[in-house]
């Protein structure tokens, strides 16, 4: 927890933090077609998202550099997915 807060704090100190949340595993559900609902957070595959953070980066490479600092990467088999947020203005 402390490590995660430090990592986020470091990004925030550079004025590049835009938001984020941990995503607890408790009370998670998965909704399938035809109104089928199962307990989550597991989808079809055995991977699940533990949280997300929104950063302000000049490029995907800069965002990747931020991602490299994420503490979950200390766990084997963990990964951080980096995505752009679509703002519909053709740029972001």
């Amino acid at each position, binding site marked *: 927890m*402390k490590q995660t*807060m*430090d990592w*986020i*704090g*470091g990004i*925030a*100190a*550079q*004025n590049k*933090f835009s938001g*984020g949340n941990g995503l607890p595993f408790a009370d998670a559900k998965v909704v399938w077609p035809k109104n089928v609902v199962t307990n989550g957070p597991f989808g079809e595959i055995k991977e699940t998202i533990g949280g997300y953070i929104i950063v302000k980066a000049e490029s995907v490479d800069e965002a990747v550099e931020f991602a490299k600092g994420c503490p979950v990467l200390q766990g084997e088999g963990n990964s951080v997915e980096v995505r752009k947020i679509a703002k519909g203005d053709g740029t972001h």
Partner: protein
Amino acid sequence: MEQEELIPHLFRTEYSKIVSVLCKRFGFDQSEIAEDIASDTFLTAAQTWPLNGIPQNPTAWLYNVAKNKAKNYLQRNSVFKNKITPGIKNSSTDLFESETEIDLSPQNISDSQLQMMFGICHPSISPEAQIGLSLRILCGFGIAEIADAFLANKETINKRLFRAKEILRGEKIKIEIPGPAEIDERLNTVLTTIYLLFSEGYYSTSQNQTIRKGLCFEAMRLCTMLIENDSTNKPAVNALFALMCFHSSRFEARIGKNGENILYDDQNTSLWNKDLISKGAFFLNAAAKGNQITKYHLEATIAYWSTQKEDTKEKWENVLQLYNRLLQIEYSPIAALNRTFALSKARGKQEAIVEAEKLKLEENHFYFVLLGELYREIDDEKSKQHFLKAISLAKTQPDRQSIQRKIDNFISK
């Protein structure tokens, strides 16, 4: 109290009360009249007290004179004369009296001041204008004093206040405490103004110590008014007050005999005001309600840790985590620098240097002071370069001098 001191003292405490009641009564449309009546009252006192002696109850005397001047004004007002008096010529004089009566009871004074605070601290005028008007109307500061506090000239301040009043008139801003739906948002604006007012006094580059202490004191006084009223006594308000208590506890220790800034590590802790520290702790506890952690809560808690001089790992780990959260809520360069300093104390200089170099606050002299501090004893040459860069960017002589003292400490080693 000697007569020469009495009127200025009363001016400071009573002017804002009289103006607030009159402004509330007359509205922003006629705020000039309200200020004129209040000023006239003190002018009359200054003229007659030397001749007739100081009245038994000076405050009551002032209130009576203010009431009479306001009454005269209202009665002379042509709308009143031509449209209303004919209609009530035959009704009891009580009605006539109550229309022109000014209520200067303690309750109406504090209600009016609170309402004026919300009227003045309104997002339609700039933050500088909000502070300027607050100082003038709520705190009884003179234009010269406000100019000194802002390091501006009197014409600038006059224009700023004039323009602000015009906008408030134009926007028809109401002088009232907002309802429950709006109050949190409007309170934010008020708290920001109070916070800026306090910061102006605490960090001011003005050399006038009396003004600086006055600004901090006024900010705390305005905050107290919010605490004393049920509808505005919110957790964030208590947190802000705690923050101001903790900071001002070090006022005496921060300024040296020659007006130089004494840095935290060099301060004489016996000059730290323990009463203010306890007061801060009390209000910080009072703020621990509700479901929101505001930036004031975080800053107040950080300020609490500042009142504990010992350099423990616990202190710096706590401060680091608090800054981590604060930066997520609201970024500021100073918070980023302080966070990095806390990081160096909690995790070591090497890690902090890495983080510091990512900050890239190249225009900010504090950035280079931090880098200078971090490189000390790791790479003294680099450290000195950073300090020199800091001096070149520093804006005031006291700042330059305190950085120079850091360099001198190296050379003598």
